[in-house]
């Protein structure tokens, strides 16, 4: 579990380029389009009968089951998305030019802000039907899981070892055969790691999407998220506690019964020359491997899958290839045509976003939102800095003690799954009781769920710090300040940054729920773009949501590109051990 994956190939392209602009415009235009399509509806969207959520503890197993189903449905959708989108991007140069920047933008923008659009869209698809609400929730969870999985898969596809690729081509494996024999197995370790991270991150969205109000429409789906939301409204501390315990149990179950066995089994997909030093173990897998009947029952399935994977299925019958390899000149003309098409689309997209926002809002609103975004930016920067100053030394201390690291690292990862909403009670109570300034004290909530990414990545880095360097430092009696600045901090920097980038992205997302906090009938809010979006969502004010999300996305993207990526690129180059 001590594995941490970096940003790999993204680090090369640091500065935003015209492709980012295109991607950004496309993403925003789609949002504006959806909003506009439903804005004209005078009647409130027909929501299914809001189901009453019972705060009875005995309902929790059922709610947990429903939530888990939703998460796995979203995970399935994420896999379908990953296998198609990433494969297309990796195989087609022209598709790649657009798809990868779009994915990159989607990965860094605060997805929670989109929630109102997607809910509107799915409710519109199935008016009055529970299906629409379910799909909306599943889609929301999907949007929190899919991007990093697709990115990981794309990067694996682009880095398949050359010799293995030559073997596959030499034996004339078809595209289909190669995909299942070489490309997918090679991508498994990275994809699996990202799937687990996605599963953790998904909880935040479960809570946000199971119970949501957009304008006059209120959705409540049976699930742990709705339970937490109901408990918050009812000010039931005990129910919040019960929800936390339930979540913990659910996470433990799927970790032990699903992910552990898969990790242990998937160890063979790691491309390395010697047998791994650390053997992943799973009691569940051992149990399965020892059974006889169960394995026999699975045998026809594995045989069938293998047959499928070896089908000489090829697109070549449909798309003639090779014989009509375009000449360089023709290819160039095609490129230009493609570029012009993309450019036209971008201009249209930008125009439609501006036109949509412009119908109701003026420059004054843009200025206001920009200022609010600056407040939120300030909040994220300060809190990240505080979390860093506090957690990095602690994590280093833990990471250098293997016995502690072994136990604490999984716990930190576990904690990262818990959504900030659980803390609304204490936050509101404290702020009101001591008349604290919400602009200052609500900020703490922003890093509540995300600081753990810094913790477990830094622990991982410290644990991986080479022993000989530690011994050398001891031998030359490097201590105190020098030891921190010249020995350990440079050693854990790349790991820390990997965690900090995730944490920073997560904090922006969290700001949307954490800048406007409700506990029962009391509301406390801070100034910031997160609060702006949350308030607009409550009112169903779509132009304001689009404006808020657009400016926030712009700032987050620039912040990532100009700050985090640059830092990571420098660290990669200078501090890689």
């Amino acid at each position, binding site marked *: 579990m001590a594995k941490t994956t970096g940003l790999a190939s993204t680090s090369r392209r640091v500065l935003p380029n015209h492709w980012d602009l295109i991607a950004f415009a496309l993403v925003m235009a789609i949002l504006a389009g959806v909003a506009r399509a439903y804005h004209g509806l005078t009647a409130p969207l027909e929501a299914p009968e809001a189901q009453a959520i019972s705060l009875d503890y005995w309902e929790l197993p059922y709610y947990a089951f429903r939530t888990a189903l939703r998460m796995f449905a979203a995970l399935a959708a994420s896999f379908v998305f990953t296998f198609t989108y990433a494969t297309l991007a990796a195989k087609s140069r022209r598709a790649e030019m657009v798809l990868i920047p779009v994915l990159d933008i989607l990965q860094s923008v605060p997805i929670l802000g989109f929630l109102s659009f997607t809910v509107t869209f799915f409710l519109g698809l199935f008016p009055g039907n529970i299906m629409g609400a379910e799909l909306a929730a599943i889609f929301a969870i999907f949007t929190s899981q899919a991007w990093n999985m697709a990115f990981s898969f794309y990067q694996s596809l682009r880095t398949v070892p050359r*010799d293995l690729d030559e*073997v596959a081509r030499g*034996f*004339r494996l078809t595209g289909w055969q190669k995909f299942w024999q070489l490309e997918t197995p090679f991508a498994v370790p990275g994809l699996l790691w990202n799937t687990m991270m996605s599963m953790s991150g998904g909880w935040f969205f479960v809570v946000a999407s199971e119970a949501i109000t957009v304008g006059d429409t209120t959705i409540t789906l049976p699930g742990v998220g709705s339970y937490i939301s109901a408990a918050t409204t009812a000010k039931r501390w005990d129910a919040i506690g019960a929800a936390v315990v339930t979540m913990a149990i659910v996470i433990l179950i799927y970790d032990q019964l699903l992910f552990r066995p898969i990790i242990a089994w998937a160890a063979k997909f790691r491309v*390395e020359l010697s047998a791994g030093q650390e053997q992943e173990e799973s009691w569940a897998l051992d149990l399965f491997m020892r059974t006889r009947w169960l394995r026999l029952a699975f045998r026809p399935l594995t045989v069938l899958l293998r047959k499928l994977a070896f089908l*000489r299925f090829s697109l070549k019958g449909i798309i003639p290839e090779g014989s009509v390899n375009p000449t360089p000149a023709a290819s160039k003309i095609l490129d230009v045509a493609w570029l012009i098409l993309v450019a036209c689309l971008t201009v249209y997209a930008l125009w439609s976003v501006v036109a949509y926002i412009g119908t109701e809002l003026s420059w004054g609103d843009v200025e206001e939102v920009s200022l609010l975004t600056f407040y939120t930016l300030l909040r994220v920067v300060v809190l990240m800095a505080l979390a860093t100053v506090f957690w990095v030394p602690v994590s280093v201390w833990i990471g250098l003690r293997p016995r502690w690291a072994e136990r604490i690292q999984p716990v930190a990862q576990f904690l990262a799954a818990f959504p900030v909403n659980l803390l609304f009670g204490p936050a509101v109570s404290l702020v009101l009781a001591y008349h604290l300034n919400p602009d200052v004290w609500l900020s703490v909530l922003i890093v509540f769920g995300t600081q753990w990414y810094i913790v477990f990545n830094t622990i991982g880095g410290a644990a991986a710090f080479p022993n000989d360097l530690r011994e050398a430092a001891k031998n030359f009696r490097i201590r105190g300040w020098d030891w921190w600045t010249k020995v350990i901090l440079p050693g854990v920097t790349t790991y820390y940054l990997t965690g900090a980038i995730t944490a920073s992205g997560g904090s922006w997302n969290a700001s949307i729920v954490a800048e406007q906090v409700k506990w029962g009938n009391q509301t406390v809010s801070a100034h910031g773009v997160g609060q702006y979006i949350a308030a607009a969502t409550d009112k169903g004010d779509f132009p304001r949501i689009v404006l808020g999300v657009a400016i926030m996305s712009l700032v987050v993207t620039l912040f990532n590109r100009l700050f985090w990526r640059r830092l990571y690129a420098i660290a990669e180059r200078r501090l890689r051990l």
Partner: protein
Amino acid sequence: MLDQQPSTLLEVTHVSQTFAKGSGEAGAPVLQDVSLTVRTGEIVGLLGRSGCGKSTLLRIISGLARPTKGGVSIAGRKVDGPADGVAMVFQSFALFPWLTVLDNVEIGLRALGGISDDEIRTRALKAIDVIGLDGFENAYPKEISGGMRQRVGFARALVVQPQVLLMDEPFSALDVLTAETLRTDLLDLWQEGRIPIKAIVMVTHNIEEAVLMCDRIVVLASNPGRIAAEIAVPLAQPRDRIDPEFRQLVEKIYALMTQRPEPKPLEPAQPTGPGLSVALPQVSTNTLAGMLEEIAAPPYNGQADLPHLADSLQMEIDDLFPIGETLQLLRLAEFADADIKLTPIGQKFVDADVDQRKKTIGEQLIANIPLAAHIKRVLDERPSHRAPGSRFREELEDYMSEDYAERTLRTVINLGRYGEVFAYDESAQAFSYENPE
């Protein structure tokens, strides 16, 4: 040869290959007008230094790469894409780590489709048996030794019953003893006719290996890759490394490979430009000094026989030649047939102390490496005495590929630092005179 043999199996005709640059333009040529014939029953070795295009040639033969010009035909059929009737063995083994030995061997047959599972299994087990892998069928590649892994590589190639077996430095990732065992085993199988292949083409940079295994050796020269010589090996199998005839052949090939590339038209180094076309290998100053000391010391006393030197230092030609060539460029040593001998300056270097050695390298660098002289001149001309590294890299890229340009610049930086001619600031990526304060 006049007696055109009827059994020509593989024919490479006028093959040229250029690598496309990032921008899509045609870059430096990798292979130039290579023609080659392989007959049934032959083992042909492609011998050359790294970067001479021998691996590229092998990939063109296998159909994995397409030549820019010319063509390949196997048994009369033109090769167009990955070819039927050839199979390749890789230097890195290239086994799928997630498949067992048996699955790895079977994959080529399964991909074909239309063969029954039973037949696949039978043929795979037979290949495993022939190649001596019995008992390892269910092991994963990472569990077994390098020698066993390469046996899997052989079994996987043989099971599809190719006419031509292509081998890309198949023994160079193995230790000396393992490599020798595998070579002998393969030759035995070949001699006894137990493997159904008709010819073998192998790429190697190991001269002795080529003489030991091949019936004919094709020596390739670099930059651009072309055939420098074809040498028939008339010795009977099994061959003996200490047989005088064997030694003579080895010496002959060493001499061939250390010959200076034909006299350059631009011998007097002009002030700018042309001299920059010399690509430098990646060699550390410690290695250079170590080699000079080795040659100066007994038993060589200033002049060493290359095969002997390679043997005693356990170096392959890919390690040895770059060092020798750099020494030759710096005029510290020079090749003479299959020997390398110190120049008077080289001898002076060996006798000197550290400071003098640094000074010697610095002087020789400026005097003999045009790129170094060019960098120094630019630094002198500029009032700031600073110059970005990218500038020189771009100039080099007019003459060589990006990789070579990068490597050449690295080597000059290294030598320049050692000779204290100029400094290079890694984080600013700039040349200057000053050292960190």
